[in-house]
């Protein structure tokens, strides 16, 4: 007997996969972009289902509000309206389906064989103990102290923390990368 939560997960993943397939197979490029929009929204729903509200919000703001709108703009700038995309070459399509199915079955076999530890965690006792003690040593910042606090405040504090397990250096590197990408567009 499946619970309501599991039913929601399977409906969401079915929605994501069906709209994803339609996004890569649709003959009209604008419809393809709209199917991609639905797929990305479904992934945001999956993040909500996983109780990662901040990631879901970022997904909606950046992907649905940014990247898909950019893609639709570029479709309007570069495509003649009402013209279908050419169908893929038959031999290439058959090869692609075979390669994709083989890769999918192989990866699913590997994932199905792997056991993720009896308690849902791979056996690494030293590693776990080290993580907890480091988390307590940070003190005021309260990083990884076993509370499972995924609030936005905690994410922001650890993202901008300069102590151990802080992510301020990658944060600055990403900001410089975004600046370079924007200045390239001038």
């Amino acid at each position, binding site marked *: 007997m*499946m*619970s309501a*939560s*599991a039913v929601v997960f399977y409906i969401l*993943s079915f929605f*994501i*996969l069906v709209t994803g*397939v339609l*996004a*890569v197979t649709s003959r009209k*490029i604008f419809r*393809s972009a709209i199917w*991609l929009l639905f*797929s990305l929204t479904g*992934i945001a729903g999956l993040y909500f*289902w*996983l*109780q*990662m509200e*901040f*990631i879901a919000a*970022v997904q909606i703001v*950046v*992907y649905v509000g*940014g*990247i898909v709108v950019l893609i639709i*703009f570029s479709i309007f700038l*570069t*495509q003649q309206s009402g013209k279908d*995309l*050419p169908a*893929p070459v038959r031999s*290439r399509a058959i*090869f*692609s*389906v075979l390669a*994709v*199915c083989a*890769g*999918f079955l192989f*990866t*699913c076999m590997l*994932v*199905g064989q792997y056991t*993720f530890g009896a308690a*849902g965690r791979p056996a690494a006792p030293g590693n776990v103990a080290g993580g907890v003690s480091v*988390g307590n040593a940070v003190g005021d910042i309260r*990083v*990884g102290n076993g509370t*499972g606090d*995924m609030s936005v405040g905690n*994410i922001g504090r*650890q993202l901008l923390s300069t102590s151990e397990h802080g992510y301020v250096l*990658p944060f600055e590197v*990403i900001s410089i*990368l*975004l600046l370079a*990408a924007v200045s*390239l*567009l001038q």
Partner: protein
Amino acid sequence: MSQVPLSHILFVSTALFFIGMYGLFTRRNMITMLMSVELILNSVNINFVAFNKYLYPDKLEGVFFTLFIVAIAAAEAAVAIAIIINLYRNLRSIDVEAADEMKF
């Protein structure tokens, strides 16, 4: 959430990854190939978030990797679309087969 095993989420993200691969193999239009790349990056994000939630619920590493991947995907889409529009101005086409001027 606890009724669904971690491997089912990994199956979904694997399927999404290979859907993106199929699009990358069959499409010849640069914008649709960019859309396939976005699907692949999203499947990786699902993996990171699911591992963080199921295996290390007291840590935030998966969240940060997901945020950085989203930021890089945004930068990559902006640069790719700038390149595509410039290519369209020069070649009047955004088919990858048409962009062969630098081919040896």
